């Protein structure tokens, strides 16, 4: 199921502005890889290039290669819509569809892609909600609007929605930054369970979170405002936080940055 991501020489632009430059890294399957770095260093831009969400913005484009196992996501004849079915995404702010119930939200990906029979849907919805540790809280009110849940529940609903389409990779762009510590803990526990089935990439501003949940950590930085962001190093999380090979990483993780 889970796949390895190979990025080589990737740069991303917004119009003429180069947001990230020449990034190469490997994301291992069935593991959690965390991206850390100061604001504006291109973490979010980079994670959005991994499922071709970057180009949704007007004027945005990408150079370089992203390989999922051996297939180039930016190769000719690749359909970005199909890519996004393989590489799912959870956003910073919980964004359940306001017109849909909890059930419909989870089923949205499958229903809108029209590939599933109604009898199977119940099972998939239950499995996804259980996978997102939300089932027990919502099983009695599946027909209530998704927007009526608390922030933390909404974010888990969004995770359930993302895993319902059975992607190979799950990208999470600061999934806990709008949540309280208890909801954050619930999601971190969930990430630990999900990595057995998915390859997970998570952007976070919280270094303790990176240390807690990730197997490998990538540190991004930018030399100055207006300059493109770069990958400084990627290594085992333990090494990044104890004995990184680059001085800038050590300064950042120990709080001596800037």
């Amino acid at each position, binding site marked *: 199921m889970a796949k390895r991501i190979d990025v080589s020489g990737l740069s991303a632009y917004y119009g003429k502005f180069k947001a990230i430059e020449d990034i190469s890294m490997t994301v291992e399957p069935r593991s959690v890889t965390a991206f850390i770095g100061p604001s504006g260093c291109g973490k979010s831009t980079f994670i959005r290039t991994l499922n071709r969400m970057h180009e949704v913005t007007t004027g945005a484009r990408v150079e370089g290669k992203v390989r999922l196992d051996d297939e180039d996501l930016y190769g000719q004849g690749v359909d970005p*819509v199909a890519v996004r*079915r393989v590489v*799912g995404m959870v*956003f910073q*702010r919980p964004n359940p569809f306001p*017109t849909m119930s909890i059930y419909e939200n989870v089923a949205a990906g499958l229903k*809108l892609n029209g590939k599933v029979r109604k009898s199977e849907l119940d099972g998939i919805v239950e499995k996804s909600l259980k996978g997102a540790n939300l089932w027990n809280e919502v099983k009695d009110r599946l027909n209530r609007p998704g927007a*009526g849940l608390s922030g933390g529940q909404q974010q888990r609903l*969004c995770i359930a929605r993302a895993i319902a389409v059975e992607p190979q990779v799950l990208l999470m762009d600061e999934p806990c930054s709008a949540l309280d510590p208890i909801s954050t803990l619930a999601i971190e526990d969930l990430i630990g369970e999900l990595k057995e089935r998915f390859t997970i990439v998570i952007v976070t501003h919280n270094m303790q979170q990176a240390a807690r949940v990730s197997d490998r950590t990538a540190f991004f930085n930018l030399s100055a405002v207006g300059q493109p962001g770069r990958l400084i190093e990627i290594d085992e999380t333990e090494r990044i936080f104890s004995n990184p090979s680059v001085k800038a990483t050590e300064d950042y993780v120990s709080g001596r940055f800037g």
Partner: protein
Amino acid sequence: MTAVEDAVAVPAGKDPLGIQHARLPRWTPAAVAIGAIVLAVVAGAAADLGNKVQVGLIAGLLYVVGTFAVSAAVEGVRQAKDRLVTVLMWGAFLIAVIPLASLIWETVDRGKTVLDADFLTHSMNGVLTIGPGGGLYHALLGTIEQVAIATVIAVPIALLTAVYLVEYGRGRLATAVTFFVDVMTGIPSIVAGLFVLSLWIVILDLGYSGFAGSLALAILMIPVVVRSTEEMLKLVPNELREASYALGVPKWKTIVKVVLPTSVGGITTGVMLAVARITGETAPVLLLVFGSQAINTNPFDGTQASLPLYVYQQWANGNQASWDRAWAAALVLIAFVMILNLLARGIARWKAPKTGR
């Protein structure tokens, strides 16, 4: 003035932070109003003004000045300004509401004389316009048919245009479309009528019909619906579109299943308001539908009547019986538009995104 004496004064030395100030008692506005009216009546009698409106204006002016003066003396200038602006705002509200209330009152009062079941179910066919009798069934039917056809033509075009402008439109074509929509918004209804007249009746020689009127009404309706739909689509957060894309849903399906359902309440309201607007249009109907005394259920063939045109024609007859019919028809027209508006609000509330709380 007693209000000044009754004001809640600040006890000396108990306000080290300087955050308390004297307040006028709650009955002050009423007292000032009574004072202003009494003064105005006295002044009116002294100056021998027979006109109640003049006395009323003097009272209003005195009330504004009096409120400011009393408040400034007791509460300070900032509070006085607040009261002054509040009074002016209420005054502006009343000035806006008076014509509306008066219009509805007058229409109901005069319209109810002949408005009954007979009036609603009969046409003017064979009825002498100088005498009482007859009804507006043919006109109501014509209006409903013409407006329905115009809506069926205009709404799909306008919705697709708005979707194009918000979701796809880039570059010159989008700029041009926006520009022409703006130009269309400013087209006077008589010009839209003349356009269809020259095309449909003069060049194509297809004759007067309800459908010709519907074409002109559709031209008037399209820009209104495009504008309101555009605004509603822009209100849909981009995050919802991205959430849908991230599930691997194609763009067109995202628009149909996520963006449009999220904004359907607002879009419906916009459409209903546009319908309400074209329902009252007279000029294009006069040019293209021509009017009729008899029931014509077929909007594609022959002249038809319509409510606004009926009001105009009855009024032009110039006798009491016709005037009564005109008022009754005006009342029906207002009620029709109001029902549509209520319907729109109901649909908007029913379809609005639910929070579940």
